[in-house]
C-alpha cells in the first residue's frame, strides 16, 4: 500500500527539490507579502530567524509536499515523523535539507516495501 516501485527512476533529487519549492510556494501564496516564487533556492530557510514561512505556513508547506509526493509519485510519507521533530539539525531548516529528508524516507520505505 505504501510501496514505491522504481524509486530511483521516479524520484530524482532535482525533481524532489522542485517539488519542495512548489509546496513552499503554495504555502507562501497565502502570505501577505509573498516573496517572488522564482527567488526560492535550495538554500532558502524554512524555519528560524530568516525563514520565509510562519508556523501555519510551514504546516501548509509540509502538507502540500506530502500531497504532491502522493499525487505525482505515489509516494506516501509522513514528513513530520518523530525523527524529523527531534533532530538537532531539523530537516525543515531549508529547501535542500527537506528534499534530502524526503529522499531518505522514500528510500527507507522502498527498502521495506
Amino acid at each position, binding site marked *: *500500500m*505504501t510501496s514505491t516501485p522504481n524509486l530511483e527512476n521516479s524520484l530524482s533529487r532535482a525533481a524532489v527539490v522542485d517539488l519542495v519549492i512548489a509546496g513552499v510556494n503554495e504555502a507562501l501564496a497565502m502570505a501577505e507579502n509573498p516573496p517572488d516564487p522564482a527567488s526560492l533556492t535550495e538554500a532558502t530557510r524554512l524555519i528560524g530567524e530568516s525563514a520565509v514561512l510562519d508556523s*501555519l505556513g510551514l504546516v501548509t508547506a509540509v*502538507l502540500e509536499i*506530502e*500531497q504532491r509526493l*502522493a499525487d505525482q509519485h505515489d509516494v*506516501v510519507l*509522513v514528513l513530520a515523523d518523530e525523527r524529523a521533530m527531534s533532530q538537532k539539525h531539523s530537516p525543515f531548516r531549508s529547501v535542500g535539507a527537506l528534499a534530502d529528508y524526503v529522499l531518505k524516507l522514500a528510500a527507507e520505505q522502498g527498502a521495506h516495501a
Partner: protein
Amino acid sequence: MPEGSAGETPVALVTGTRKGIGRYLAEHFLARGLRVEGCSREPAGWEAPGYTHHCLSVADEAGVKAMLTDIQKRLGRLDILVNNAGIASMNHVLLTPDATAVKILDTNFRGTFLLCREAAKLMRRRKYGRIVNVSTIAVPLQLEGESLYAASKSAVETFSRVLAREVADFGITVNVVGPTPIETDLIRNVPKDKIAGIIQRLAVKRLGRFEDVANVVDFFIRPESEYITGQVLYLGGVA
C-alpha cells in the same frame, strides 16, 4: 477527476462500523445519499451499495494513512469524519492491568488523533470538513469503574477543542458528542443496577438510542454549522 470519483456526492468516513453506533451511522449516512467509508479491525459482516469497508486498527498509523490515501485516490474527497471506534474496560483502578491502559488509550485517543490528522489533510484540500468525535457521559458524571475509559475520552474532548482552533482556517469544524449508555456491546457487561443508577442521574431518564446520537451528528455536520466548532454536547441532559 479521479477514477470512481464521488463527484458531487459528499463522502463520510466512520470508524468502528462493524456494529453498534458506527454501523447505525454508516447506514444512516447511506440512507441520506452519502458515500460512506468505514473501518473496523475485522470485516464488517454487512454490505450496502455506496459503502466500502477497510480492515485496520485505528491505532495503526500506516494503516490509517493508507486508508485515507485510498479514499483520496478513489473518491477524490472527504467531507465528514466520525471517530466512533472505541473500547471500554470496566474495572476498579487498583485491579486494572497496565496493558489495558495502553489498549484503551491507543484505540480511543491515539486512534482519534491519527484519523483526525490524516482526514484533516484531505479535507484541507477542499477547504471544507466536518469532524465529529465521540466521547461519553462517563466524563462529566465521573463514573466509578470507568476511570481509564473516561480519561481517554477526556483526552479526546480536550484534543478536539484544541484541534478545532488549529484547523478552523482550513474550513474544518471539530465537535464532540457524548452519548449516554445505549444497548450496545460496549455496555453488555455492565451490571443492570449500575446502568439503572446512571439513568437516574440523567435529566431524561431512559437509555440512549442510536437516533439520539445521529441527531447530534447530523447537526454538527450540516454545512450551515460552520460557526459551531470545539463544542462538546452530552445527551440525556447531562451538563
